[in-house]
C-alpha cells in the first residue's frame, strides 16, 4: 500500500497528464461521432453570450450585403405570390385543419465556421423558442445544416460542411437520390454519393433535398453539378456539387420544424402496431 501511494506521489504529474489527455481524447472522439458532443459545446451561457454581443457589432459590417440578399429573396417570393393562377381560394377551407406540416422560424447565425473539417455553427435561438435537436436549417439560397445541441437561448448546428453530416438529396429532374457528404476540402463544393449508374446526369444539373428524411421538406435547393465520376466499384456516381449558398458569409437563416416527425418516426419504428 505504502509503495502504491509513493508511486502515485512520485509520478503525480505524469498521471495527471494521462488523465487529462484521456478526458480530452474522449471529448474528441465524441465530437467525431454524429450527435454526440454533449458536454463541451458553444451553446451555453458563457460562449453564447460572448458571441452574441460580438455579433451585435459585426452585424453592421455586413448590413448592406445581407439587405440585398433579403431583398432578392423578397423579390423571388413576391414573383411567386402574384403569379399564382388561383390566388383567390374559392372553395371552403376548414380553418381547424391547416395542412401545414412544416413550421419556419427565423434565426441569426452568431458564429460561423467553415475552415475546419467538422464545422459547427451557433444560432441565437434555443429551447426557449422551442428549437430541438434534428430541426433543419436553411438560408434563402439553400440548405445550411441540422440542429445539434440546444441550450435555453442558443443552438448549435452541424453544418453541411461537416465530415459527419449525411443529408438525403436527389437530382431535381429525375428523382434519383443519394447521400450528401463533405470531404473536408473546399467550402464551396460538397459530394453527393450513391447515385445509381443508370441516372441521367449532366454538368449544371440542379441538386435538391429529397424529403425522405423528415428533416427537410422536398425541393430545397442545394447546388449544381460541378463534375462527376464513377466510384471504384463502377456502380454508383460520386458527384461534386457546387453550393448555391456561400457558406462563408451566412447570417439570416430559417429553422424548419417538421410537425409530423413524431408520427413518421412512430410509424417507421413500430410498423406492426
Amino acid at each position: 500500500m505504502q509503495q502504491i501511494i509513493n508511486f502515485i506521489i512520485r509520478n503525480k504529474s505524469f498521471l495527471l497528464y494521462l488523465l487529462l489527455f484521456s478526458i480530452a481524447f474522449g471529448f474528441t472522439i465524441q465530437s467525431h461521432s454524429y450527435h454526440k458532443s454533449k458536454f463541451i459545446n458553444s451553446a451555453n451561457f458563457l460562449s453564447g453570450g460572448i458571441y452574441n454581443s460580438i455579433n451585435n457589432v459585426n452585424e453592421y459590417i455586413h448590413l448592406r450585403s445581407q439587405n440585398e440578399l433579403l431583398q432578392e429573396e423578397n423579390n423571388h417570393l413576391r414573383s411567386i405570390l402574384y403569379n399564382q393562377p388561383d390566388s383567390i381560394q374559392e372553395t371552403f377551407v376548414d380553418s381547424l385543419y391547416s395542412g401545414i406540416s412544416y413550421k419556419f422560424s427565423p434565426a441569426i447565425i452568431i458564429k460561423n465556421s467553415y475552415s475546419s473539417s467538422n464545422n459547427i455553427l451557433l444560432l441565437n435561438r434555443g429551447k426557449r423558442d422551442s428549437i430541438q435537436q434534428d430541426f433543419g436549417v436553411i438560408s434563402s439560397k439553400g440548405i445550411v445544416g441540422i440542429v445539434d445541441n440546444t441550450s435555453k437561448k442558443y443552438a448549435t448546428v452541424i453544418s453541411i460542411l461537416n465530415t459527419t453530416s449525411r443529408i438525403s438529396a436527389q437530382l431535381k429532374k429525375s428523382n434519383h437520390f443519394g447521400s450528401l457528404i463533405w470531404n473536408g476540402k473546399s467550402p464551396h463544393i460538397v459530394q453527393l454519393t450513391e447515385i445509381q449508374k443508370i441516372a441521367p446526369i449532366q454538368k449544371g444539373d440542379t441538386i435538391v433535398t429529397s424529403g425522405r428524411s423528415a428533416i427537410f421538406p422536398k425541393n430545397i435547393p442545394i447546388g449544381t453539378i460541378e463534375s462527376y465520376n464513377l466510384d471504384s466499384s463502377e456502380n454508383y456516381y460520386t458527384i461534386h456539387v457546387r453550393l448555391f449558398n456561400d457558406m462563408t458569409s451566412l447570417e439570416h437563416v430559417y429553422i424548419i420544424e417538421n410537425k409530423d416527425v413524431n408520427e413518421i418516426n412512430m410509424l417507421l419504428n413500430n410498423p406492426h402496431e
Partner: protein
Amino acid sequence: MNSIVLTHSFRFVILALLQVLILSHINFLGYINPYLYILFILLFPLKNNRVIFIFLSFLLGLTIDMFLDSGGIHAAASVTIAYIRPAILKLSFGAVYDHQTLKFSNVEFGSKLSYIIILTIIHHLVLFSLEIFNFYKIILILQYTLFSSIFTIILCLLTTVIFNRRK
C-alpha cells in the same frame, strides 16, 4: 507573488478571447490560423507547481474548445506541451535552466527561437492529428501543421518582442 497570479490570470483571459474572437477567424488561404494562446503555456513562470500548471493548460485548451466546438483537441494539445515543457526547456537552454537562473526576458534569441519552434510544432501536430483524425490523410495533417506553425511562431515572436520592450 500576487502580482504574478494577477498577470497570468489576465493573460489567460486576454489570450483566450483574442484566440476565439479574432485569430480563429483569419483563415488565411482558406485554412491557416495562428494559435497564439499557447503563449500562456510557453511563458508560464518556471518555478511553478507542475500539477497546477498542467491543470491550467488543460483548462485553457478546454475553454478554446468550448468556443470553437472542436471537442477536446485544443485541451489535448495544450496539456501535452505543458507536460513536456521541462524537457524542452532543458534541451533548448541547457545549463542556464539547470541553475534555475533562466529569465525569458534576457536569454539568447537562438535558444528562445528553438524553444518556441519545438513546442509550437508539437502542439500543432497533436492538434491537427486529432482534428482530422484519419491516418490516411497524414499529408494533410503535416501540411496544416507546417503552415499554421509558421504563422504561430512569427506571431509569438512578435508578441514577446513587443511586450518585452515596454518593461
